[in-house]
């Protein structure tokens, strides 16, 4: 086991290095650099800037150096825990991300909880009542959630919330609470705003989960051991939860790998539409502005979480599922 872990961790390093090179190249691919975008943005509002100042900034940010040097500068500092400096905010990257990370995690947590709460019962019901009206009906609802584009759904919900409930448009809370300490009023305001992203992001994920749970469970339900248990007079509920459901949960554990990065990144597009103070819009803006250290470090962070998440999934599966464990041992 320990040997296995060590080799897994060892292979992570070249993977991450390759990812870092890719990230850096892709961010640098569009013509121009951050300062060009900056000048363009100023000009589009009618402002202008001293060319000399731009030259000084370029030297200051090291944008006049060759790409390889810039890359080395970034990655060597990244390893040491210095994630670089955001041109856009003129602050260290860590400082900017830290703030938004918490709200993102809270939102993602509730969204995932919401998805599970909806998808689990429906998935189980659909599998046990295969091809019934209930199965079709609920699956249909799930597919609706999957099929409606998130951004469109988000816009409609914004309109409805503003029109009928008087909620201020976008954001995670009413503006007057933004710089206030936590209070009941603030919590209420957050809840008032949070249900929209929760619903929008949540519904898009339920269908996939329902279908996977249903398929996995159906595979198990027809296995002989289920029949045996039933023949021995075990109650249906216990029979279901004790054996086939447990077996069907493997996919769920395997999902943790992809869950980890998504908890941190939030749903980017929905967050942009809803103007949420999460990390998604930050990443998008950084990419658009070619704010390369902010974008690069954030993407690198996500890559790191994905790789770690995969490792955690594998280890968990190893621990939880004896089939995998024994397969390994017998080799």
């Amino acid at each position, binding site marked *: 086991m320990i040997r296995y872990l060590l080799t897994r961790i060892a292979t992570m390093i070249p993977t991450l290095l390759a990812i870092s090179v890719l990230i850096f190249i892709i961010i640098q691919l569009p013509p121009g650099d951050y300062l060009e975008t900056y000048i363009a943005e100023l000009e589009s509002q009618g402002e202008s800037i001293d060319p000399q100042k731009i030259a000084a900034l370029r030297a200051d940010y090291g944008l006049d150096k060759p790409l390889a040097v810039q890359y080395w500068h970034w990655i060597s500092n990244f390893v040491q825990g210095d994630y670089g*400096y955001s041109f856009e905010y003129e602050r260290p990257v860590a400082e900017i991300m830290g703030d938004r990370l918490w709200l993102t995690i809270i939102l993602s947590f509730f969204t995932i909880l919401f998805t599970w709460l909806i998808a689990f019962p429906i998935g189980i019901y659909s599998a046990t009542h295969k091809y019934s009206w209930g199965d079709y009906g609920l699956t249909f609802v799930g597919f609706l959630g999957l099929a409606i584009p998130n951004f469109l759904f988000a816009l409609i919900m914004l309109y409805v919330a503003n029109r009928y409930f008087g909620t201020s448009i976008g954001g995670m809370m009413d503006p007057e609470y933004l710089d206030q300490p936590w209070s009941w009023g603030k919590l209420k305001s957050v809840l008032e705003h949070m249900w929209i992203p929760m619903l929008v992001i949540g519904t898009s994920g339920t269908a996939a989960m329902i279908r996977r749970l249903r398929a996995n469970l159906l595979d198990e339900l027809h296995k002989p051991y289920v029949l045996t248990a039933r023949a021995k007079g075990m109650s249906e509920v216990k029979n279901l939860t004790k054996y086939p459901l447990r077996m069907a949960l493997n996919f769920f554990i395997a999902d943790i790998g992809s869950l980890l990065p998504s908890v941190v990144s939030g749903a980017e597009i929905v967050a942009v539409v809803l103007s949420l103070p999460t990390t998604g819009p930050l990443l998008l803006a950084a990419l658009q502005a070619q704010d390369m250290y902010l974008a690069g470090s954030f993407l690198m962070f996500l890559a790191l979480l994905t790789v770690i998440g995969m490792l955690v999934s594998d280890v968990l599966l190893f621990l939880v599922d004896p089939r995998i464990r024994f397969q390994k041992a017998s080799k």
Partner: protein
Amino acid sequence: MILKSLIHSIFAIALLSSAVAQASEPPYLQAQIDSGELPTLYERLPDIPAFGGTEHLSVGQYGGTLRLLMAKSKDIRMMTVYGYSRLMALDKNLQLQPDILLRLENEDNRVFTLHLRKGHRWSDGELFTAEDFRFFWDDVANFEPLSPYGPPQAMKVDGQLPEFSVIDDYTVRFSWKDPNPNFLPEIAGPSPLYLYRPAHYLKAYHPRYVSEEQIEQQVEDTNSKNWRKLFHNKARQYKFTNPDLPTLQPWYNTTAIPAERFVFKRNPYFHRVDREGQQLPYIDEVTIQLASSSLIPAKAGSGESDLQARNISMDDYTFLKSAEQESKKIKVLLWDTALGSQIAIYPNLNASDPQWRETLRDVRFRRALSLAINRHELNQVIYFGLARESANTVLPHCPLFDTSLKDAWAGFDIEQANALLDDMGLERGSDGIRRFADGRKLDIIIQTAGEKNEETDMLELIKDTWRQVGIRLYTKALQREVLRNRVFSGQAVMSVWMGLPNGIPTAEMSPASLAPTRQDQLQWPAWGRYAETGEGSPPDIPEVQRLAELNDAWTMSSNSAQRLAIWDEMLKIHAEQVYSIGLINGTLQPVVINPRLQNVPEKAVYNWDPGAFFGIHRFDTFWLKPEGAS
């Protein structure tokens, strides 16, 4: 005469100081005054406060919070723009008036003597004196580690820096050998040339005033890269990013970035008063909430902003207007914009293809292209007929305007256009398309940055009418940087971009944008580059040479009449030579306001420079009528 005006102003000041003595304190500050935290109004104001420019405005009531929406945290710099507190500031008639300065003596644009207001204080209560100017000049602008390139470009005349001297605590002087007519417009600009820094605050971060260990410590504490970065981060006056930095603007920032909402509070030491001696601003707090730019029109429409023009465009007008009627929570005004042309077509006189270069340099060709555009149709189709059909020139309310400038070669006349092209010997082929002598067809590829829909829409309409004169138009959307580089290298024959950036200049403003001065002038990038760097070849067309000469003459001129004559001649050359083909100007900018907000002009110009957006319309005098009041 001088004596009379002196007596006049002394009288006005006497009246004013008695008014100030009686004026009430802003209730917002009362608690702090009672507790002794803040001195009284009389002690907070300079000996002679600034009181001009409010005659046409109503006297407001104190109080309230004004909400603004911005797309990015960097946009909080707009508070410096809107606040528009400058050494010298433009009034609403675009005349320069002393603002932070008590007065300024100008000797032939060479020697400028700046007189400060005695007793003027920074927002933290420290005195604003000549030391702040000296600190900037000696310890920042001319201190190599902080400013490797020396003082700002605008302070150099032919590479020469001015001589700076401190006359006394409240008087400083900048003197150049040659005239520097850009100096005053620069210090009055929306993103102004700063000549001062709050010395008392910034000395704590400057190696000439504190020991190395202390600075090292601060660098470590603030997690900064090095002391230079730290100093610059602390010293950004324009950007408002450091809440601790004292300011001279009407409101000071209290929120550090990153944040989602910024709160600006009234500067208790602000130097302006209204005509009754009440200290400005009227509004206590300004809050800026961040929202994604695509949501801002929707939020403004639902009344979540009290004053919004940024991130709103004519596209949103119909939605905003219906929201206005439905909810009564907002009022929508339409202000003018000041571009010489919303979009202009630039023939590249430095095109690398010799055939094209020769053709584009022929004035008949440029005139024909301009005549073959139906501007009326563009206006009706794209701007609901609300814009103005015009060549790329100054706007009607500009003092330099003349109808002949607007109409020069800007009518729709296919016949005349055809005649001009026939005259050039560009024969039509059997398909009706004209050909060069060597048989190549006249297919013009116009390169666009593809950032605005209206650009492509307009070109689509122009395509039809150019076809009637035997010219085919193709458009090619490029990434903006690529576009520029293609124009610079001469590969792009023609491009589109916005017209004259300032359509409401006065003769006192630099005419540089009319002469070859910068590489990014899309009609003559090579000549612009020559002017900037001395590389490449100088202009070889007499009219363009004349423009360059006139621009130099303007810089050296020492009287207004001469400057006016120069502007007139330059504008005329542009009108006659059609160096850029203007389409439409005078498009409108919707401004959404809270119906309770007072002193906002119904009709005004929304422009960056001159204008500072709301700046010259005196943002500090806007006030909110209490709810329920009629």
